[in-house]
């Protein structure tokens, strides 16, 4: 987040380069039950991002050393497909994907009723097929939806959303240019019913006031995305298709 002063990210009319308002998120669409081999699955598209999540389990936890006597462990893998970005990514785990996997797992363990499944493992696989900034949030939303689709008991869903700062203005849901040349990024995972926060990262530069505004935008967006999540689940389970 360098804050490159010479790159214009806001237009004369106050709108963003892609025509969005300051507090407007990219269009989101969600579908569950898309992968027949998985116990639960979901696809989330947010702008140009495409995130797919699959859930397997609960199943036996192995290797044994990861087992917990009193609860299930959630084993998350966040992975970007080689063709998901402008320059091809070499297949395999890297430091970024390991870190995102870890904090995503911890966020999901905060909502799944893991005590119900001692000594077991729930596998969550997040695959990013197209990446244009905001994939960890789209992936987190997809993971929560896939867990719900798998029928795994949860206290609440999690909605992944991000706000940030460009040209000293707080904006909701950064796109790729804003992410590359903006001044801050604040991705969070919000429990839509309780209003609690299970996932939090940030980088860049935000004043306390800017942080408050970014959070306000995040909560507003979480409410909107939550409605889409509920609709997606209803579509599958309320006598729609299937």
């Amino acid at each position, binding site marked *: 987040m360098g804050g490159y002063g010479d790159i214009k990210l806001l237009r004369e009319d106050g709108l963003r380069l892609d025509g969005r308002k300051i507090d407007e998120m990219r269009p989101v669409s969600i579908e569950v039950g898309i992968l*027949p*081999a998985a116990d639960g699955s979901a696809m989330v598209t947010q702008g*140009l991002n495409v995130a*797919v999540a699959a859930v*397997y389990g609960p199943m036996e936890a192995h290797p044994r050393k990861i087992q917990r006597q009193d609860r299930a462990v959630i084993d998350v893998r966040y992975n970007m497909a*080689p*063709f*998901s970005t402008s320059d091809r990514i070499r297949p395999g785990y890297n430091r970024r994907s390991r870190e995102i996997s870890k904090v995503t797992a911890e966020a999901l363990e905060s909502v799944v009723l893991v005590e119900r499944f001692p000594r077991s493992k729930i596998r969550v696989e997040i*695959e990013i097929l197209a990446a244009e900034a905001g994939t960890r949030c789209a992936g987190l939303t997809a993971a929560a939806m896939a867990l719900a689709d798998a029928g795994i008991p949860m206290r609440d869903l999690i909605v992944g959303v991000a706000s940030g700062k460009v040209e000293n203005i707080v904006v909701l849901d950064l796109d790729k240019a804003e992410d590359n040349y903006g001044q801050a990024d604040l991705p969070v995972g919000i429990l839509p019913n309780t209003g609690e926060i299970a996932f939090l990262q940030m980088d860049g530069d935000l004043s306390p006031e800017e942080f408050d505004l970014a959070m306000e935008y995040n909560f507003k967006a979480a409410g909107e995305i939550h409605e889409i999540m509920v609709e997606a689940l209803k579509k599958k389970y309320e006598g729609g298709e299937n």
Partner: protein
Amino acid sequence: MVELVPTLLRQELARLAESDSRLDGRGRFEAREITLETDCLYNAEGSAKVTMGKTIVYAGVKFEIRTPWPDRPAEGSLMCGAELRPVAHRKYEPGPPSPESIELGRVVDRGIRESGCIDMAGLCIVPGEKVWGVMIDIHVLSDGGNIFDACGLAAIAALRTAIVPAERFDVGEDYTLKVQSTPIMASFTRVGGRYVYDPSEEEELGGEERIHITIGDEGHLHSLQKGLRGVFTPAEFTEIFKVAQERCGELRTMVSNQEGN
């Protein structure tokens, strides 16, 4: 993870074979429903999604500029890889590429490479210095059986829609990659003692060896592979080769119709 093969499944498959029927009611050489979608991945220069029954596969094409191989200074290069990531089935585990995924990628790679569908000399930018490397990455998202055919189809369909991103690399204007033919794969698995086309997940679980045949536009063979434990007779091969010829023709038409849209 070792998959337990239910004895009951094997018995049921053998019983069905006696009346020449299959678990899902298909004929011996009948395919499941296929869908093909192209240009479906935003950041890939060429892309395709294939569904075959419960199998879902994506392929994406990326380009990079590299120095040519010393023995072929005026030719580009092609690489095709497949990933069997744990997203695709509970039987797949994280870790370095498994022998299965390497075999899959290489069989698809051979079919495309050996068909000569890509003019490698046309991928040269500066002889001895700069050539295009074409990379096809196949991502299996759901393994519902016969991922080989799904991967082969996704790979060639993605390749046939690829745009060479010359502008982004500052070496001229973007242009459509020239792909001169459409190699197609057909796979057979021995189930209940005889070969069936397009095996489902259950048929693969309770079946034996498999044969993959890739056929080009002229009906010539471009890649063959026998996988898993088992043997077959020349007469059996003759029979499935004939089926493959016919089926590959149908799928080739499907790929060109998709491009026409």
